[in-house]
């Protein structure tokens, strides 16, 4: 029983961080109908930036802040330099998809370069900022609590931005119909870049939280976790913020329980098992809105 509860707690903490990555996928997919494969590498980039600034003695808090902003800017640059020209040319959708794959190659292998961070795994400072909590035989690590709490607060902030602010309104308008939105005076290109910026920031935060929990980083760390978080976004219903949270938590908890009882090989693919089951039962995800195809 204790191992079970331990797995659930672990899953909830990890799931919240997945949700934070998932919203990035979800928002970009919402406005562009594009799976942004570069997102996982931006997550890795964020973690590496924190590592870098800590290693040059900037201090934990400011390192994280700088890393968040840099990752947001990087995500925005990806959109401005690589994706926006494609939108202007009205290229086929798969061109954007391959572009994001190419960008993820550049970032991921760029981090692994001998002159940059090398491909070796690096230690990451622990985020156990206060003592662990013991309930009976159960230990809850403080990094788990931090992960859960920080992600929860940030997701609340994100949903405030999307639902209550003016830029959020523009984002939702662009998501529903980019053309109509631009006719109403919404600067859709700015909105899309802003979406990428928010996604990049939240990916960097998730990268810091998860790296602080595992205390290890490597240039390829974003690949699997990115795909999993994307699965979480789809499970919850893409384009719906709280859907990503539920999806992230479901994926996190199920994979931790599966890893506990079925072996670590099952851990990563569990997200996709859930994904396919949900998509077959509910093609738009748990909370997704039904799309109507118009002639």
């Amino acid at each position, binding site marked *: 029983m204790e191992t079970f509860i331990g797995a659930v707690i672990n899953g909830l903490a990890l799931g919240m961080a997945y949700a934070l990555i998932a919203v990035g996928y979800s928002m970009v997919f919402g406005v562009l*109908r594009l799976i942004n494969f570069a997102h996982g590498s931006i997550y890795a980039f964020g973690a590496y930036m924190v590592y870098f600034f800590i290693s040059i003695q900037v201090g934990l808090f400011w390192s994280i802040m700088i890393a968040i902003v840099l990752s947001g800017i990087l995500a925005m640059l990806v959109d401005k330099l690589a994706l926006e020209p494609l939108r202007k040319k009205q290229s086929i959708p*798969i061109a954007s998809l391959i*572009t994001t*794959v*190419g960008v993820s190659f550049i970032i991921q292998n760029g981090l692994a370069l001998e002159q940059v961070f090398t491909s070796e795994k690096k230690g990451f400072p622990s985020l156990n900022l206060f003592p662990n909590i013991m309930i009976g035989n159960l230990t809850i690590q403080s990094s788990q609590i931090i992960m859960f709490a920080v992600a929860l607060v940030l997701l609340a902030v994100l949903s405030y931005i999307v639902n209550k602010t003016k830029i959020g309104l523009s984002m939702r308008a662009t998501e529903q119909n980019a053309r109509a939105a631009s006719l109403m005076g919404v600067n859709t290109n700015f909105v899309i870049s802003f979406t990428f910026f928010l996604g990049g920031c939240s990916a960097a935060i998730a990268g810091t939280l998860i790296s602080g929990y595992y205390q290890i980083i490597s240039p390829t760390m974003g690949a699997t976790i990115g795909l999993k978080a994307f699965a979480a976004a789809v499970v919850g219903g893409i384009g719906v913020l709280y859907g990503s949270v539920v999806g992230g938590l479901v994926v996190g908890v199920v994979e931790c329980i599966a890893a506990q009882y079925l072996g670590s090989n099952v851990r990563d693919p569990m997200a996709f098992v859930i994904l396919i089951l949900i998509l077959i039962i509910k093609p738009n995800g748990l909370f997704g809105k039904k799309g109507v195809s118009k002639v």
Partner: protein
Amino acid sequence: MKEKKSLNLLAPFESFVDKFKVPLSILVGAFLIAVPFLGASRVAMRNLVMIFLYAMLGMGLNVLLGYVGQVSLGHAGFYAIGAYTSAILTTTYGWSFWTGAIAGACVAALIGFLLGLPTLRLSGTYLTIVTLGFGEIVLMVLRQWESVTNGNYGIRSIPVPELFGWELTLSNGGFYWLILFLSTVTAIACYTIKNSNAGRTLIAIKEDELAATMMGIKTTRYKILAFVVSAFITGLAGAYYSVINNGYIEPNNFVFNYSIQILSVVIVGGMGTIRGMYFGSALLMMFPQVFRFLNQWRFVIYGLLLVLMMQFRPQGALGWQSTLPYKLPRRAKKALAEREKAKTVQ
């Protein structure tokens, strides 16, 4: 303006190829068959084999992506199923490579059929996501089902194929001729499909699914068919891969990156074309070899190339529209001739 110029060069070239297609294909064919006698090194032969293998994989995905317009991010899954089925049948049950390979391709096709079924409910990007999940789940099964697949350790000592007592290996050119044969058969099959009724239907679905439905096409049926054909070809390529990889396969040979690599071959070469598959494969397989001196930088540059390619030539390197007059299918020609006749009678 720029496009017009390239078209002007293209038209004479295409009509030249079309005019002399028999002698040209004999010439190219004879050269390709003779390659192992030209004294190429082992490394060169291995590269050639990989180029043809990926051309075949590209053609497999092309049926889905180029003809019906469905993006798949899980083709490494079919590749793995073909390889493992064939490898298990030949090692554990003592089947010959030939029957094992066909069985592998058939199992992959069956799974392709099952994977195609969600098309009844899902479309477009969501189906792409399902294929992504499929690839990961195949990997999980390979790693977890230890009694059959030997888990992470993979399958060892897979026997090489034999043809009338002659063992095919890399050094005697057997591997090369085998993949040359397989990829040529695949190319002919793809060409036939593309110019058949079913192929035109597939392309109609790609161009406009709604319009195709309105024309009375049962789109899901054709999409599932495309999945089956695509999976069959990919499975066959997988079976071939299981024998050339020093008789050893493991789950890591079929991770997500390989799905991306197959996809890149199709995109870089030119979706919907067969020539493009060979070219794209040659380009992507040779790139890491030729630019070995760049060390780790080559993967960064590889990514940069993909991005630039999409910016400036999203239709792929050889993805041009044919300038030759459209060849009507025989039935249409017949119907036209009859109509002409009826007119003259009137």
